[in-house]
């Protein structure tokens, strides 16, 4: 039964060295820095256009962003098999066309922005004010609001400012409530009212820059012009003046975002990813679009998949943390990798919300479960009942927190429900058999592991390394294999066997 150990150590060594060499190669050749932050930030945004073609000629027009304050366009590209592509620069439009297409079609457009503080906005001429035709009783309501605003403003911008203040703070004002029946979208309503007052304004669209997001919608903003080319942007959601810091304007004119001729059911969604690279490497990567095998990098995938991998590639870090805490420390957790999944949920919810949400759900679940255990149900039925209870608890918490105005509470839906149900079931059995103390030990151990895994997985440095250097995965694997071979004591054993050492303290061994 005794195998030679050297091939195993050799394997660990090979994995480690390969990982290291791959990382160093990538660092040297592509100038990807080992540390985040010492570089320029680029944002890649990918628009995914989906529609169903009518089995005839198809023409698609997609609005595309231009350089703007704080962001400069670095490069743009599109992926669309069989389609002709034209970048129409004066209109900021991308045009795809094909003679014949049938069935579901997916087209990609990708643009890279460099975060550049020196970049200034390009001024744009105000659009012509379209005539606003409002029927009664909306006309009277709009007129009343107009009179009210005119008396407390000096010019177009201050008029707009007061309007947004009214829209965001006095939701239930009678006139507004009436007008909201006519136009429910706040941005469009604001533009309508501004146009009604003779002020040039239009709805523009922006993308919220959040690293690793997929299938994001556009955020509508309102641009208001004063005399000439002077314009100001308002966020209808908050009523704040000026472009929000984390937004990138996608479309600055009042035109449709997406036009599809010869197709139906069209929609567009966005994936966003953040890179920390030197300019040289950003340009070089652009030149190497036909990626060679040697530059084995996640960056060759479409952005949506990249965003997914950003999370997947963090899982080995979580696994390593679990290994360390169990093998080196001896921490007891409920379910081996449950803490990693909880940590993933924490990434979505933020730590404090996550901890509070998790504790509340598990605690309420345990109360419900203690009732279920009186019913003498079969195991599978009981766990299914617990799953439904968990869903009910999550729904209840979401509703409650929304009612009292805590939008944070809505994030409890990010918790993996099946895992939570099993956790509740196991803890409940543990409670009945070993008492509350053991529940606290294992529950606390799981939460502690989850928090440590969360801290590691949100660490900027670790995120940078795992995403930019695939070689790091091999190094992690080598570390986990090496840990699997550790025969030393666990930290908790040093306390457990303490009495043994004390017994011998007086005697000579």
């Amino acid at each position, binding site marked *: 039964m005794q195998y030679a150990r050297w091939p195993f150590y050799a394997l660990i060594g090979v994995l480690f060295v390969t990982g290291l060499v791959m990382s160093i190669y990538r660092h040297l050749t592509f100038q990807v820095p080992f540390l985040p932050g010492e570089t320029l930030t680029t944002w890649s945004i990918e628009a995914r256009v989906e529609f169903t073609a009518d089995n005839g000629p198809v023409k698609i027009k997609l609005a595309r962003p231009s350089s703007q304050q704080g962001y400069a366009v670095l490069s743009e590209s599109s992926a669309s098999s069989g389609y002709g592509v034209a970048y129409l620069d004066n209109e900021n439009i991308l045009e795809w066309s094909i003679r014949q297409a049938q069935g579901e079609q997916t087209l990609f457009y990708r643009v890279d922005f460099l975060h550049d503080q020196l970049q200034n906005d390009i001024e744009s001429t105000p659009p012509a004010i379209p005539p606003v035709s409002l029927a009664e009783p909306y006309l009277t309501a709009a007129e009343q609001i107009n009179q009210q605003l005119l008396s407390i403003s000096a010019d177009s911008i201050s008029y707009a400012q007061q309007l947004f203040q009214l829209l965001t703070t006095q939701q239930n004002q009678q006139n507004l409530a009436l007008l909201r029946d006519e136009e429910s979208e706040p941005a469009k309503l604001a533009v309508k009212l501004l146009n009604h007052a003779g002020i040039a304004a239009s709805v523009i669209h922006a993308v919220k820059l959040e690293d690793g997001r997929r299938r994001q919608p556009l955020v509508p903003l309102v641009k208001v012009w004063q005399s000439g080319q002077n314009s100001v942007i308002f966020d209808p959601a908050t009523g704040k003046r000026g472009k929000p810091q984390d937004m990138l304007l996608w479309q600055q004119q009042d035109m449709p975002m997406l036009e599809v001729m010869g197709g139906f059911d069209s929609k567009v969604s966005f994936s966003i990813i953040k890179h920390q690279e030197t300019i040289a490497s950003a340009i070089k990567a652009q030149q190497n679009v036909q990626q060679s095998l040697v530059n084995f990098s996640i960056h060759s995938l479409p952005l949506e998949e990249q965003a997914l991998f950003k999370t997947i590639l963090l899982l080995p870090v979580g696994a390593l943390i679990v290994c360390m805490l169990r093998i080196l420390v001896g921490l007891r957790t409920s379910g081996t990798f449950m803490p990693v999944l909880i940590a993933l949920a924490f990434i979505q919810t933020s730590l404090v919300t996550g901890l509070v949400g998790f504790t509340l759900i598990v605690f309420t679940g345990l109360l419900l479960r203690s009732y279920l255990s009186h019913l003498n149900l*079969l195991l599978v039925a009981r766990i299914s009942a617990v799953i439904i209870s968990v869903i009910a608890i999550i729904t209840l918490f979401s509703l409650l927190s929304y009612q009292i105005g805590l939008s944070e509470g809505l994030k409890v839906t990010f918790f993996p429900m099946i895992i939570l149900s099993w956790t509740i079931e196991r803890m409940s059995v543990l409670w009945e058999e070993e008492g509350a103390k053991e529940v606290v030990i294992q529950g606390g151990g799981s939460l502690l592991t989850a928090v440590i895994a969360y801290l590691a997985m949100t660490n900027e440095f670790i995120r940078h390394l795992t995403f930019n250097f695939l070689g790091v995965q091999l190094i992690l694997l080598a570390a986990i294999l090496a840990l699997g071979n550790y025969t030393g004591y*666990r930290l908790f*054993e040093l306390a457990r066997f303490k009495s043994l050492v004390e017994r011998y303290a007086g005697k000579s061994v």
Partner: protein
Amino acid sequence: MLVNPFKLASLGILGMNERNIKYIARYNERKLYPLVDNKLATKRLLENSDIHVPELIATIEHQSQINNLMTLLPSTGGFVIKPAQGSGGKGILVIQNNANPNFAKPNGSELNIEHLQHHCSNILAGLYSLGGKVDKAIIERLINFDQLFSDYSYEGVPDIRIIIFKGYPVMAMMRLSTEASDGKANLHQGAVGVGLDIANGQALHAVQFGKPVEYHPDTQQKLSELKVPNWTDMLELAAKCYEKTQLGYLGADIVLDVEKGPLLLELNARPGLSIQIANGCGLKPRLKMIEKQQQTRTAIERVLFSQQAFSLL
């Protein structure tokens, strides 16, 4: 709060990681685990051998059998319901007395038949088995344990755990249930562990919750006076389990029945490490010594070897 790991190593204390890699993974073949993880398999294996086990009253394999559980239970005397593939003493229900229509637990509390049926259906659904696999329930005759030890135990059967390494008994302890452990014999739940001298079955040293104790916390009996009779027979019984199972690193749990003598309660392929605390010494030097033995010996020869080599008094 913590001790120096090098001091622990110099005392030859075996840690969990080392146990798993150097002993369990190396000497216990994976395919042999079911023999000990499944108590029914263990019983079948030891059938018609000179290793005696508690009498099997019934096995419950299907949910339908639970409905007429009453007919399966003995009309008088005590019995134990346990999962065939349970671990760590989970899911074991001890009924001291069938006091129709209710059933008395050792602590005096009474259960009705619905409680027993619910317990059985939990066992069948796999609540107590490793990995939640569907399981079978076993009903065994309650051991009529030797009154010799009744003063040393509170509401439970005191059992003797012997670690067998390659067929040699290397360390032994007696586990005494207490009020804190709720009549169970698991050390981490608060049972008292009494280390036994391999040479003669005499108590060496006792611990509860990892701390030395001199008297049983509930019965106030002096623990150092404890001595197991017929010690060599008991060791031989345990040593024979090696030939039967082929598992190199094994924990045997033995109880002393007043009529049938030593009975093998269960075998464990992953025996715990608390036995070192109860004995006040480490396992490693003993395991290393056994690893050096080249000679093939019979069970009784191995017992005699161990008694000579590991005597502490």
